Every structure is written in C-alpha cells, then in structure tokens.
C-alpha cells in the first residue's frame, strides 16, 4: 500500500481513538501552503513548453463543469435532502469546487505508477476552484439581492489557495530551468513526504468530522459518496471529450469528484453566513475526502481506462 495512504489511515485511526496527536497549527498551514506552491510550480514548468492559446478550450470547458456541478447538487440537497436553501447552496458550492489535497494524492498515485497525464491539469484545478463559489452564492441569495460582488471576487481571487497556485504556476512558467533545478530538492523531492505529513493531519481532522456525522444522518453520508461518483463520471466524460490521456482523464474525474475544504468554506462563511459550516465540512472532510483518497482515485482511473477512445 502507498505509505501516504497509510499516513492518512494512521491519522484517521489515531483521531477516532482520541489519541493525543496533533500537528501544530502553523505546521499544518505551512504544509498546505507548500502543497499549493509545489503543484503550481510543477504545472508551470510543464506549461512553459506549450503554447498557452491551445489550452483555452480546456479551461473554458472546465469552468462550465464548475458551474454545472453545483447546479445539479443544489436541487438534490434542497428537495431530497430537505436542507435549508443556504445550506444546500453552500454544500453544492463545496462539491462544485475542488480539493488540492485530493488532487495531490491523485498526482502522487499517477507518478508512482508512471502514468502520463496532461501537464496543464494544475491550471484546470485553478479554473475549477472559483466558479462553484459564485454559483453557490447566487443559489443562496439570488442574483437580485445586493451582494457585494466586488468584495466577494476580491476575497476569492486573493485567497491563499488561488494566490499560491497561480503564483506557483507563473513562477514555474517564467523561471529559468537552471534556477528551478536549485529549488527542486525543496519543492519537488520532498513533495510526497510533505504530502504524507499533510495526510496524517487530514486523517485527524476527518476523524473529528466523522464524530459529527451521527448528528446529520444517512443522507449526508450517501451524498458524500454518490455525489463524487456522479461528478467523476462527468469529469471523465469531459476528459474524453477533450481527448485527454487515461491519466489526465482520471485526474480530471478526481478534480470533479473532490470537494473543497479550504477556499469554499472561508468564502461561504463570509458570503453566506447563515449556512451551517459543520454540515458542508462534515460531508467534505468526513466522507468525501477519505472516500476519494482511499477508494475513489483508483476507481476513477479504472473508469478512465474504460472510456471508449482515450489518448496515449
């Protein structure tokens, strides 16, 4: 088994047993910053070798997916789940956006198995982060009401994850190769070790969320598993439409299936304060993250392999 998955399980089990274990807050923050930068850098380096214009169709397609997914999730949560409007909108936004931690595990999975994937996936990750947030706010408030869209966009575009991802992309893109080589030992060679530390803490956090599950019952559990499965289908379909490789299709499915737990919670807390943050975080961190990391990624790869015609 991959050790990073074992680190996640260690955290999960230690958390469920209420062990006296926690990553110091500042370390967790730094580790998640490093993941964002590293993924950005890696994408940027690859991007440098291809014409940017070719990527526009993919970027556009992915934005459409980021708008569509929460629009599908919202009525399900509202009608079937019986959630209040704000809660349904907020959860939908979480699932329309993406999780960098899940993507990082997916990338590690591909790299370990020497599976090729399109190098601009980190760029697509960036594109997918934001649209769902805006859709979520509109679903909660309607278009009419005077939302301070300027403030909201500012808040999101200048949030930690976008700045570090885009910053990393740009640095990787602009930096000269010799210079990049000198920062590789820190940002690239340590990547999986740092991801392991991150997953240890994610396991501990997920364990706390699992504790909250009892309160919210079966519907949330079902949604937290079925929604990513549905999204993965959409993501894989899109990968196929865009003529992606098997690895790239699997990673796009992974992105679609992943649910945000950094950017979206912060944005929703400010813009849709009446939504209960525990609901969305329990689903996203307590169910969907573990599901994707432990079961989803291999499954999505399986799925990508079965798409009719796939690239190299």
């Amino acid at each position, binding site marked *: 088994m991959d050790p990073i998955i074992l680190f996640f399980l260690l955290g999960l089990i230690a958390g469920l047993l209420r062990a006296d274990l*926690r990553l110091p*807050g500042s370390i967790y*923050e730094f580790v998640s910053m490093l993941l964002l930068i590293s993924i950005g850098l890696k994408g940027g380096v690859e991007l440098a070798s291809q014409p940017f214009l070719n990527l526009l169709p993919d970027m556009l397609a992915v934005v459409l997916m980021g708008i569509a997914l929460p629009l599908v999730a919202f009525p399900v949560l509202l009608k079937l789940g019986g959630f209040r409007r704000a809660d349904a909108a907020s959860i939908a936004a979480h699932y329309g956006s993406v999780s960098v931690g899940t993507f990082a595990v997916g990338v590690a999975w591909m790299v370990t198995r020497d599976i090729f994937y399109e190098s601009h996936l980190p760029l697509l990750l960036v594109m997918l982060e934001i649209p769902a947030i805006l859709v979520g706010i509109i679903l909660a408030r309607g278009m009419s009401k005077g939302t301070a869209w300027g403030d909201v966009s500012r808040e999101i575009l200048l949030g930690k994850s976008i700045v570090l991802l885009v910053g990393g992309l740009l640095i990787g893109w602009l930096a000269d190769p010799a210079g990049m080589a000198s920062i590789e030992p820190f940002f690239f060679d340590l990547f999986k070790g740092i991801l392991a530390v991150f997953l240890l803490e994610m396991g*501990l*956090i997920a364990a*706390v969320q699992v504790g909250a599950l009892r309160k919210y019952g079966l519907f949330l559990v079902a949604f937290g598993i079925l929604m990513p499965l549905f999204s993965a289908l959409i993501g894989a379909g899109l990968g196929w439409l865009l003529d992606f490789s098997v690895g790239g299709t699997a990673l796009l499915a992974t992105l679609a299936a992943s649910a945000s737990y950094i950017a979206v919670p912060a944005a929703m*807390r*400010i813009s849709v304060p009446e939504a209960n*943050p525990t609901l969305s975080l329990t689903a996203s961190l307590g169910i969907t993250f573990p599901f994707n990391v432990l079961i989803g990624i291999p499954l999505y790869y399986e799925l990508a392999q079965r798409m009719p015609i796939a690239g190299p």
Partner: protein
Amino acid sequence: MTNLPFTIRKLMTIVTEAVIEQPLLKDLERLGAHGYTVTSARGKGSRGVRNAGWEADGNIRIEVVCDLDTATSIAAHLKERYYDNYAMVMLLSDVQVMRPDKF
C-alpha cells in the same frame, strides 16, 4: 490610586471565529474604537468545540478599550450583524486607564 490619575473606561472582550477577523476589525474601527488587541484562542460554546485544529476552526479573542457610547454601538452592531450566524461571545467590564483621551 493615590497619585496616579486613573479614569474609568469600558473593556469589551469579544470571542469569535477567526475567519471574520478582518471584517470585524474594520467594523470596530468604523464604530469608533481607537485600537484593539487580538490573541488567537480556542474554545467551546453553544456552537460546539472550536479547536484551532485548522483554518476554519480557530477563535480569536479581541479586546477593545473604549468609552460607553462606543461600547454601546459596538454591542448593538455585533448583536445585529453577527450573533445569529457566528460563534460569538461578548463581555463588557470596567477598567481604569491612565490616558483616557487615548480610548
């Protein structure tokens, strides 16, 4: 206090979610606070345990020394704007200060 001239002011202590630090501090200044002190905290209340385990889960503890009027309008504003949707506690007490014009 024998020879040091102390004046009474209000000390308002707010414990709330770290995620609203920025807008809240802006509100405080707009409402007339001349300063504030912030520390990171964790805690438990009616909205459950807030353990500072990760970004969205931490508290802050804000102290504002101000006059009665400012305290009243801050209290009214917080009540109206934040009480319903955010984990928040607000405490008010008297303190003596040496430079009353500062607050």
